[in-house]
């Protein structure tokens, strides 16, 4: 039903190129990249390939650290977190697709610190849509968007790997669950 809506959204592939450009030259060798499931992992995979770092890619599913577990329980299919390198004293770039309230990032930081004590932790997001509820700020961002609280922005990935952003009324998305 939202098919005819004039999309205010930028092209995800262009944002990806912009994000890679920002980060390239700004990271030390040995920096670890950790994507947050699901969309953040897609972005992190692309970053990891483009930056050519020798440290393997890490992934985090924050389901066990969410602050709304008591209200909502475990949602959907929890995927195993996998950080295949020692985080102690290592610089880390946490990667998410859409940065919003900051609660996901808080949960990811809590989980990350259960793996050890990292050095500098930076945040990269394809899109910052505003609406922060916690003191969280990204170091690297593809684009900033102004989006109403009634709408949800999400990243989708085609079978061929191409990514695109979509926007839907919040009620429609929550109703489906």
């Amino acid at each position, binding site marked *: 039903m939202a098919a005819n809506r004039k999309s205010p959204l930028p092209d995800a592939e262009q944002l990806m190129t912009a994000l890679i450009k920002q980060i390239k030259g700004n990271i030390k060798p040995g920096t670890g990249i950790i994507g947050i499931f699901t969309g953040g992992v897609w972005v992190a995979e692309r970053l990891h390939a483009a930056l050519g770092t020798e440290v393997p890619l890490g992934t985090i599913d924050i389901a066990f*650290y969410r602050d709304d577990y008591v209200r909502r329980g475990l949602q959907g299919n929890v995927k195993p977190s996998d950080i295949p390198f020692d985080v102690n004293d290592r610089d880390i770039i946490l990667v998410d697709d859409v940065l919003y309230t900051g609660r996901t990032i808080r949960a990811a930081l809590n989980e990350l610190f259960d793996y050890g004590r990292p050095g500098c932790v930076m945040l990269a997001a394809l899109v910052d849509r505003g609406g922060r509820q916690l003191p969280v700020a990204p170091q690297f961002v593809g684009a900033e968007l102004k989006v109403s609280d009634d709408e949800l922005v999400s990243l989708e990935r085609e079978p061929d790997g191409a990514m695109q952003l979509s926007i839907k009324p919040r009620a429609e998305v929550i109703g489906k669950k």
Partner: protein
Amino acid sequence: MNRDPQIDSNGKLVHLLSIEGIPRDILISILDTARSFVSVTEREIKKVPLLRGKSVFNLFFEPSTRTRTTFEIAAKRLSADVINLNVGSSSQSKGETLLDTVANLSAMHADMFVVRHSQSGAANLIASNVAPNIHVINAGDGSHAHPTQALLDIFTIRHYKKEFAGLRVAIVGDILHSRVARSQIHALTTLGVSEVRVIAPATLLPSHLSQLGVQVFRNMTEGLRDVDVVIMLRLQNERMNGDLLPSAQEYFKNYGLTPEKLAVADPDAIVMHPGPMNRGVEIDSSVADGRQSVILPQVTFGIAVRMAVMSILAGQSQ
């Protein structure tokens, strides 16, 4: 009124009482969640904050060290507070009823009961009488069910064999008295395992087995032929003294898992046992410690599976 008390009106799992009645998609979501907890238990800090502030009461009316310990570890790794009660030695011997014991503990703001009882149906009775925000896990009731054991068994099978379809699984031993076997059979058939076989002497076979969709064998070498998974059951010593079995030696000769008997199974067949094992009674040491044994990984997976069950149940509180 006949509704399964473990599933609420929205189809969510609110208690875990038996595998019977749990739909396939819930079983799969427990297994998927457990896989994520395996990676938690491999970390430096083996703890997540999900059940912080919750109180889990281990209510053991029947002695058990291993099961109680794995539940305790699972709850602690979810950051819950755990209270262990060996009820057999306290209130019950003073004459308090089961439901009075539970009502008293509920008044102490329990959030979850893990119940082991020698009477079949004890966990169901408790689940039917607690407040809606309290969850009950059956940790073994009489000869009825032991659902978390069955869940960790199917988790182990999935870990090594990936898919359930096409598998041949044999369960060997005292099927008659085994709550583990009953739960395993329900789990395996729900998940679409092609062939579930049970192998036992006639005196240790229940009468209604054909209704459960299993094949019955009295002979080990026939029953084990080409199987992918062998699940050995513990032979309880007290069964030896009755009329059911002549002697431990005789049992081992016919039903003990030896390398020779295992040789007729698939070469990559895995050997499982819920523990504690009786070496030289139902299983030969060279098999128990051999290449195909996954008995110790079962114990490790058991913690992740119990963490998954607890976190799914506690997440359904409103």
